[in-house]
């Protein structure tokens, strides 16, 4: 894992260089726990990217490298009745919700022990037991689903859950977003839409930067049209994300009304693991963004505050590297799905058409 971490000297220089002073609302233990989760995601993503390049994982593979702080901070607030839904960049979400990394990796390998029995692959992870409702491949397509799930959470008796609905900056130009957000605003007026929209603004939808996709580049302001209150947060700063997550999930839970949080981030990895041509952005830009790698930033905080030592950091990294390696081993050794699985799960009744 290559993350940028500044030397202690550079760090103190940066601290006096007008960096926003952090409000340490996150306890040292919490920060360490959040850090561990981000490291879990990072090593998992690196491992599956390697497997993809070795031809062991097929289809499309979209990793979350650089964006870890967002889902990590937000999903640390999850409550029993909550639901989570996102698009295809979904490995982190399901892992953070508690799915077994072995089953997730096996899914990417298309094995019968996979999270969805090898039927969905990277883009269609699903784990209802852990509150993860997918895993969707069509940009924008899942957004109305999240709004509907939020409605159900206040329609059904004795449910205090909320829905965390994740979307990318590219998805916000899609009709499905506008139709879904409008409904959320409308139903939210009656307290019937506890939906927290999380806009993962990583600056690009595939090769298209924000200003090449819209004339109103203040993306989160699009929620204003639907009377959904909103704010933006530094998505590279785990403390900032976590603080916003605690406050906003509480608000949505209490009011039953939607809220939109934009997490400013950067897609350090290529769009998909198969994409090498990056004519649309410069190497310098990516290099610059790496300096704000959320994991590197968190390590700096942990060290500066003497929460952990360098040695402990190394140990934590090794622990999760091993965990990812174990997941790979499990996936490699798992059997393919039995051929009978081809025809199951089409309908509730097993009789197949044709």
């Amino acid at each position: 894992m290559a993350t940028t971490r500044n030397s202690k000297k550079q760090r103190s220089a940066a601290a006096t260089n007008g960096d926003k002073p952090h409000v340490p609302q996150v306890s040292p233990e919490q920060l360490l726990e959040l850090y561990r989760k981000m490291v879990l995601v990072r090593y998992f993503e690196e491992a599956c990217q390697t497997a993809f390049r070795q031809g062991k994982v097929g289809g499309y593979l979209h990793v979350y490298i650089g964006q870890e702080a967002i889902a990590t901070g937000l999903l640390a607030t999850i409550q029993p009745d909550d639901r989570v839904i996102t698009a295809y960049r979904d490995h982190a979400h399901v892992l953070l919700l508690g799915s077994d990394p072995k089953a997730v990796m096996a899914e990417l390998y298309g094995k019968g022990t996979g999270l969805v029995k090898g039927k969905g692959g990277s883009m269609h992870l699903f784990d209802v037991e852990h509150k993860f409702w997918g895993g969707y491949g069509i940009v924008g397509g899942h957004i109305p689903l999240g709004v509907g799930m939020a409605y159900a959470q206040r329609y059904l008796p004795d449910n205090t859950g909320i829905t965390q609905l994740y979307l990318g900056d590219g998805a916000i130009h899609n009709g499905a977003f506008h139709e879904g957000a409008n409904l959320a605003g409308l139903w939210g007026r009656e307290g019937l839409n506890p939906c927290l929209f999380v806009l993962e603004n990583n600056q690009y939808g595939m090769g298209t930067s924000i200003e090449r996709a819209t004339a109103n580049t203040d993306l989160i302001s699009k929620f204003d049209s639907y009377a959904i209150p909103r704010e933006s947060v530094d998505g590279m700063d785990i403390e900032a994300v976590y603080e916003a997550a605690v406050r906003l999930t509480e608000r949505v839970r209490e009011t039953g009304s939607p809220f939109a949080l934009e997490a400013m981030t950067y897609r350090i990895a290529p769009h998909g693991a198969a994409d090498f041509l990056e004519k649309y952005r410069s190497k310098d830009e990516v290099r610059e963004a790496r300096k704000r790698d959320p994991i590197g930033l968190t390590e700096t905080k942990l060290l500066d505050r003497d929460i952990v030592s360098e040695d402990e950091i190394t140990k934590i990294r090794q622990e999760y590297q091993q965990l990812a390696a174990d997941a790979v081993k499990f996936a490699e050794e798992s059997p393919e799905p039995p051929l009978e699985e081809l025809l199951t799960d089409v309908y509730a009744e097993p009789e197949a058409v044709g």
Partner: protein
Amino acid sequence: MPVITYREAIKSAMAEEMERDDRVVVMGEDIGLYGGTHLVTDGLLDRFGPKRVMDTPIAEGGFTGAAIGMAMAGMRPIVEMMTWNFSFQAADQIIQNAAKIRYFSGGQASVPLVIRGPNGGGVQLSAQHTHSLEGFYGHFPGLKVVAPATPYDAHGMMIEAIRDPDPVLILEAGALYGTKGDVPEEEYTVPFGKSRIAREGTDITLIGYGRQVNLLLKTAEKLASNEGVDAEVIDLRSIRPFDTETIVDSVKKTNRAVVIEEQWRWFSVASEVAAHLQEHAFDYLDAPVERVSGAEVPAPYARNLEIAAFPGEDDIIDAVNRVLYRRS
């Protein structure tokens, strides 16, 4: 004759028409700066500029609708669907507007629009990214639907489509972009509604389109050397308009037919072919027409399941043997 790829053949056709006719523009996601996710439009932005080569946001319904408006107003837009899987978001525009405007305007308005892009499966893209939509779009009167299998056809059909006064959907096979073939330098078009005999034979007619044509040709060689069966292979090329004559003439000669497709069998192209044969060649058929199609399930991800879901050589050989009453 220059040998170029299927990808180059499509690109050169668009570029040639753009040179000849400045009403022609291209639009779609990541087709300009990025060069297209399958690089079919690579270089066009530099050559023709951003007014004619437009990168769009991820808004298939919006930009396809806008292209229909441009076409009605006298332009000749070409829309790239990054893949046809995303065309469902534009299906309302394609089906409700593009297909019907000539009719419900009493012939006053027309929609000279081309929509093109890859479809088909085979690379583990799973349920939402694996469709063969020839039958689906072929269902709607007002649309023309073609599926070129060779660089020659891809080039000639692209030019034909741009010049066509009605909406034409070109369902390219993603798997074919890198395949090579002869494409003449001289200007030519491939008319719609005319199928092609890809291999002559006497014992049985094998019918397909798109990337299945290559599979059929390969299987026909195997049938010839291993089973002593001389198969005729027909590349449908055009789904709508449909060429009944070529398949009927072939079956009059061979008396047997197998139709192959990657899409689901129910309400499909193969079903349509079988219906045409029983209507027009009933007295010549020595066996029921067999359809070899995809399994009736959303596309699975796992490699072994995906292979099982799509027709392969063995499935074709089995069907041929059944139609020839050789084995059960």
